């Protein structure tokens, strides 16, 4: 019998966590010196990093709003990270209080923090699991308890797929999730893309993230589009995230600076 693979030997705050680095980019203080040092190194290499995180977070907000407006009332947010401002359940439950949200993250600190935030919210839960094991996520009792897979569910995989290597077969992960979904379900996806970046910038970003537990895997638009296999992309398709249904035309300016590409797909039927 082995130790469960999600239980690290120690919780080491000397080691940067991608969840807390992301929180730092967003202006939060849910982070430690090592996280800030790594995030600052990233900013030195890629000065737009905070902008990227903010643009991505804004994409998440608009996508959830879009889904809420489309009548979706169930959300599975995988790779949810540190629950900083603008969480899925805040946005969804503000519009539709009956919305149910399950967060999934592999980082035990992020999970413990989420659990504290969600205390008292019986329509939201957090599960510690790895996106690499979608079947475990789908079988988790808390996921089964809150989400009814006979009804549409929005699966959010936002700013996390670039931590999944090709060896982990992201296509298989997405297929497993898709096969569990009812018609009318949605997939929201975004990840770092190397379209339009210099080789140097990409190398430097990858070097910074090699210090974390999660090295970076950037992908281009075609690869991202392929992840939506089986889903019908809603307008405008896979784009730089600021271009995805912007609040105002000017907020989509210089969109490629956001580095993140994303899209929303709907399961037909």
């Amino acid at each position, binding site marked *: 019998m082995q130790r469960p693979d999600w239980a690290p030997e120690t919780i080491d705050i000397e080691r940067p966590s991608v969840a807390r680095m992301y929180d730092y980019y967003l202006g939060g203080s849910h982070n430690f010196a090592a996280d800030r040092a790594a995030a600052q190194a990233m900013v030195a290499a890629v000065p737009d990093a905070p902008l990227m995180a903010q643009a991505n977070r*804004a994409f998440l907000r608009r996508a959830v709003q879009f889904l809420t407006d489309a009548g979706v009332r169930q959300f599975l947010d995988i790779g949810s990270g540190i629950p900083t401002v603008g969480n899925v359940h805040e946005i969804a439950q503000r519009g539709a209080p009956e919305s149910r949200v399950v967060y999934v993250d592999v980082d035990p600190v992020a999970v413990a923090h989420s659990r504290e935030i969600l205390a008292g919210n019986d329509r939201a839960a957090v599960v510690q699991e790895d996106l690499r094991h979608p079947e475990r996520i789908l079988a988790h009792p808390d996921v089964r308890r809150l989400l009814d897979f006979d009804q549409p569910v929005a699966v959010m995989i936002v700013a996390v797929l670039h931590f999944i290597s090709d060896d982990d077969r992201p296509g298989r992960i997405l297929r497993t999730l898709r096969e569990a979904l009812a018609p009318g379900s949605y997939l929201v996806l975004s990840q770092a893309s190397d379209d339009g970046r210099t080789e140097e910038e990409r190398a430097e970003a990858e070097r910074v993230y090699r210090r974390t537990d999660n090295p970076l895997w950037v992908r281009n638009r075609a690869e991202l589009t392929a992840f939506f296999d089986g889903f019908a992309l809603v307008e405008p398709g896979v784009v730089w995230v600021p271009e995805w249904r912007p*609040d105002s035309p000017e907020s989509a300016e210089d969109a490629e600076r956001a580095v993140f590409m994303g899209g929303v797909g709907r399961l037909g039927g």
Partner: protein
Amino acid sequence: MAAPARPGAFARAWAKAVSGTSFLPMTQAQLEALLQRLTDQLADALLAEPFDLRPGHRVGTELVANHIASAEGLGRTVEVLQLRLIRDLGLVGDDVEDRMARLLAAIATGYARALRDRTLDEQESIRRAVMTARAQAERALRDSEARFRHQATHDPLTDLPNRALFTERLTAALNEPGRGAERIGLCFLDLDRFKVVNDTLGHQAGDRLLITVANRLRRALDGHLVARLGGDEFVVLVERTGGTDDVVAVADTALAAVREPAIVDGTELTVTASLGIVERQIAGTTPGHLMRAADSTMHWAKAAGGARWEVFDAERNRRELARHALSAAIPAALERGEFYLDYQPLTSLRDGSLLGVEALVRWRHPELGVLHPGSFIGLAEETGLIVPLGGWVLAEACREAERWSARGGRAPFVSVNLAVRQVHRPGLVQEVRGLLQRTGLPPERLQLEITESTMMSTTEEPVRALRVLADLGVRIAIDDFGTGYSNLAYLRDLPVTELKVAGEFVAGLRAPAAEPASRTDERILASLVSLAHALDLTVTAEGVETAGQADRLRAIGCDAGQGWHFGRPAPADRILERVG
């Protein structure tokens, strides 16, 4: 959240200034509406009588609460307010510039306080999350270690402690300081004929039976450590015994628990067990000794028919160990040439001539001295080592016997004992034919002695082999005739040349002829001789020790004799010299 007021040019400019300074979980329109509300509050404050700084604090606090919460957010707010608020809103007043400066200071103060509080709160909450996560990880680790430890020390089928844990506990009990004078006991238990259950009902049924037995032992022997060693073997540790009786009581309980009928797959099964008991003082013993002693004792119980316990007996164990050691040494002894042959004469009762000699194996053991067949042939037969040993005897006898013809005159035949396993081996005919060819010994100078029990087998093969050998000219003798199952049917089928009559009939002839028992033996011998002669067989009497016996045997018509009267076993040279 936002006031319905339409955002004015100033609020829009403010919103534009703070966008992108940190993540704002709202649309641009929501942000503008929020800042319009704050603008209104600031405008009111600038004109209010008396002048009050508290709205400035509140605006600073509210900005942070709405996540406009970065250094840049504050800087740009101060800038845009200072540059545009009074002008854009057309505010007029004597001291409005003065008030603006003080209000900005209040906003910055409120903002910095709120941001500091928020930062500290967030730091606290993330540290709390780390502690929670750490506690959980440690608990998970402890649980998994406990689970791991349990799995490493327990049998997965029955959940009883396994051999590793049992050995650990036993070792601890033996090594605990100050307990040397105490006594300890083991019960080694093995189900009888468990294999039959597996073979007839299947392994799943066997497993269920083991679970049932394990549960009963656990219940019945509460307070003693019961472990499953593997297969259908269980062991019980009985600590602080006062003597063997204490362990016997445990053994009785265990056997009774096993004996209760068990329902497995709707079949009622009654199983029994064999149990070995060892009980002794702790001082001077080791876990290995105790386990081996209990294990051997269990096998004694099994050999005695099972469904019982036996208590360890050091003397019996010593004998068995010695026997075991002896049999284990046979292959090496063969290689080192520690075996040799003596020969005993088979003498004609008619003219006293030497007809043949019986080869008798000896073992010149480096420690025990010369051993006679009685001390190792039985062992060799049990272990199957009789095949290489018997093969060596046969080859050596043929090799030596061939040389005897060089002495001139009629050389005696050599008679060699064949064990049951040798006769039943497929290669016997080839082996003998090969030996005769290699040594050049004429077939009629080789006699193979087999026992009646060799022929008890129902298979045809040995009979066919012996017939082939007889056709070659090899003599076949039945050894110890008259002591076996007295089924004479095989005499019809077998190409027997000679009967060797067992020494116990001959022994009777030592008594005076007038004694009734002696007369009976004589009559039996006479009938055997006449039966043999009627079948055209010769008869050799074994165990002839006196001249009187020889005379009476001759009178009966017996053909030959063997025994001390005619000569003890000795090296071939000495035998041949004497007749030479």
